[in-house]
């Protein structure tokens, strides 16, 4: 009789524990594989300990990919934040037009990123793409959007921005609508201008919501695969070869399984560290926002 209530809490926690194991097991197995030289050519591999990481970190290809990944993530998350907040501020004042625009705004979020990239790939095609067609009257009809290194990276970021800016905008809009009214009323009574209110009240109080979106978008952009692979396959040259694509090529296309997984483990470490820093920053910003609204 006494054992049943004693066991109940553990039984209740069991599903969560199994779920945790289900998450940790593949991760731990992947980590374990990286300690071997497991590949198609060596299905019964030797233990090489940290050799894969040593090789990886000594390669120019890795550092190039790391640099491209960071450029992409900072560029995409940064542009999406600025545009997303701007769009949210524009839509904040509810009107019939604004409500229609809100619905249109979320359309890109309903399209799979890989499909969006394919659509944009066709639109950016230099000779038959609609983008150059529209630019032709302005003398810009011959732009090689994805054929140059800088163009390919910018085009990839642009597609990411097209797909995910609505996500930031929706979060920011929700944040704007949940801000307390009293500080704004007090500012209006004191005769504060729009720009002052925006800078001193709206943005500081909105910042925690925006930072949540930034954290999501920055982490997602670090892990990007679909948009770039569909648009440029990592080219031209290695100009858009982010870590995820490099990992895929190594593990699947070239069948160097351990080496490919090493790339993903390094990427995981980078994402984890970035997330940790951003979440700590979020905590400080939330406290700051509370002081402003209080």
């Amino acid at each position, binding site marked *: 009789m006494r054992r049943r209530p*004693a*066991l109940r809490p*553990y039984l209740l926690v069991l599903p969560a*524990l199994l779920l945790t*194991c289900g998450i*940790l*097991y593949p991760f*731990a*197995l992947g980590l*374990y*594989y990286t300690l*071997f030289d*497991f590949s*198609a*050519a060596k*299905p*019964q*591999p030797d233990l090489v300990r940290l050799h894969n990481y040593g090789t990886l970190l000594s390669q*120019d*290809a890795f550092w190039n990919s790391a640099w491209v990944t960071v450029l992409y993530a900072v560029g995409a998350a940064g542009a999406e934040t600025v545009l997303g907040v701007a769009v949210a501020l524009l839509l904040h004042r509810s009107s019939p037009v604004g409500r229609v625009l809100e619905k249109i705004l979320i359309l890109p979020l309903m399209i799979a990123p890989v499909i969006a990239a394919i659509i944009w*790939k066709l639109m950016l*095609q*230099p*000779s038959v793409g609609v983008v150059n067609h529209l630019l032709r009257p302005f003398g810009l009809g*011959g732009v*090689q959007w*994805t*054929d*140059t*290194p800088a163009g*390919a990276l910018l085009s990839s970021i642009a597609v990411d921005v097209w797909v995910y800016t609505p996500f930031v905008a929706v979060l920011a809009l929700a944040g704007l609508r949940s801000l307390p009214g009293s500080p704004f009323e007090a500012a209006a009574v004191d005769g504060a201008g729009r720009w002052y209110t925006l800078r001193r009240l709206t943005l500081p109080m909105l910042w925690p919501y925006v930072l949540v979106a930034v954290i999501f978008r920055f982490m997602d952009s670090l892990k990007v695969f679909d948009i770039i692979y569909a648009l*440029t*396959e*990592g*080219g*031209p*040259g*290695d100009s858009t070869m982010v870590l995820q694509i490099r990992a895929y*090529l190594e593990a*699947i*296309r*070239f*069948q160097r399984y351990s080496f490919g997984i090493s790339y993903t483990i390094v990427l995981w470490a980078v994402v984890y560290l970035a997330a940790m820093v951003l979440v700590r920053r979020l905590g400080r910003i939330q406290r700051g926002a509370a002081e402003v609204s209080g």
Partner: protein
Amino acid sequence: MDRHVHDRRRFLALTGTLAAAPLVSACGTGFGGGRQDKGGGSAADDVTGSFDWKREKGTTVKALLNKHPYTDALIADLKSFTEKTGIQVTYDVFPEDNYFDKLTVDLSSGRASYDVFMLGAYMVWQYGPPGWLEDLGPWMRNSSATAAEWDRTDFYPNLLRAGQWSLRAGEPLGRGGQYALPWGWETNVVAYHTGVFRKLGLRPAETFEELRELAGVIERKAPGAGFDGMYGIAVRGSRSWATIHPGFMTMYARNGLRDFTVEGGRLTPAMNSPRAVAFTEDWADMVRRGGPPSWTSYTWYQCSSDLGAQKAGMLFDADTAAYFQAVKGASPASGRIAFHPGPKGPDGSLATNMWVWSLGMNARSRRKSAAWLLLQWATGREHLRRAALTGHHIDPVRRSVSQDGAYKDRMRHLPGFLETFETVAGRTRIQFTPQAQFFDTTTSWAAALQEIYGGKDARSVLDGLAGDLKAKAG
């Protein structure tokens, strides 16, 4: 309370052990897709007695196929295979962009989802060493398993050799196991739009220098001659191994250049030799002068359709890529596409690189005898002749089909096709050095080509490539 603490500790210890168990077991056996057991001989030895097409009646064989006109011809004719053998064939068809990833993942998983699949000779270099491919040699040699009319001497020897390898890097093809059978192949030639050539008074290029000139001339003059938006020459440019092997490797080989040199079983990259650097610069220059506007994303699909849409004046790629546009009603350019062997090398060489669609068998298949009957039938004279005459399965792998009067009659209306085929067929072979890192090597090579096209110094890019590949392939 004491008891609760004790219970909690035991519970945590138990769940910890349960969670760790699969990980611990993985330490011993976690690496799947291992080499097949080579000790037991071939399953072909189990087939005895007189040959019988009905031997495996009632069996179902599963095939993995790439979306291709050759596949269409095979599927259209499968009914006759089932009538002949009593074997049912089920199949999955994937587009080429995904096909090889699907096949690679499936084979590396160690399962036997598919008994039979399409592959190229280069895939033998990747799939052969891990033991994923059945050695078809014992099946071919066993007269109980192989019909007398399946005449191996009827295949073009180079095509049969393309699927035969010792599985040792750098060793030439034509020795060791037969891991794939030739089924349909492609030789790389120049196809051109006769309308623009006639209007501009041009002739097909006989040297690479002339080809580069020609590409530039078409790019400059064709739009003014009534071919709006036409550029010079369609060649592949995507960041893929497939960019290197058609026109580029053909012209590279005609210049007497090699991808690797082999000494004592060690491979040394040779794509940064002074002559190779000069050739690569010239190739990139040709693309800049008269190549596709979005070259770095160009696959054979785009190259082929640009020729058909009268957007490209020439195509240096597989003869089939032009053929599919040239046949009556297939494209705006049909009836106006002619074939030419392409530029010769400095010493008159017409060495040509080939792509050979082959059929292979999964080493883990549980229906090998039935799968072998399907392979025999699909690569046999009867089906291939029918596929060439009623489908688009051209470039016959069998001499008997290429010499067949009805086949020649069918192809005669395409200007230069038969003459070009006959000129280069005997000189077409795999021009790459066989090695398991082929896809990495050639993908990196394509990336280097893109960088040179983008304006980077060819010497330093190719030196960097060679340094990187030396560590991988050596």
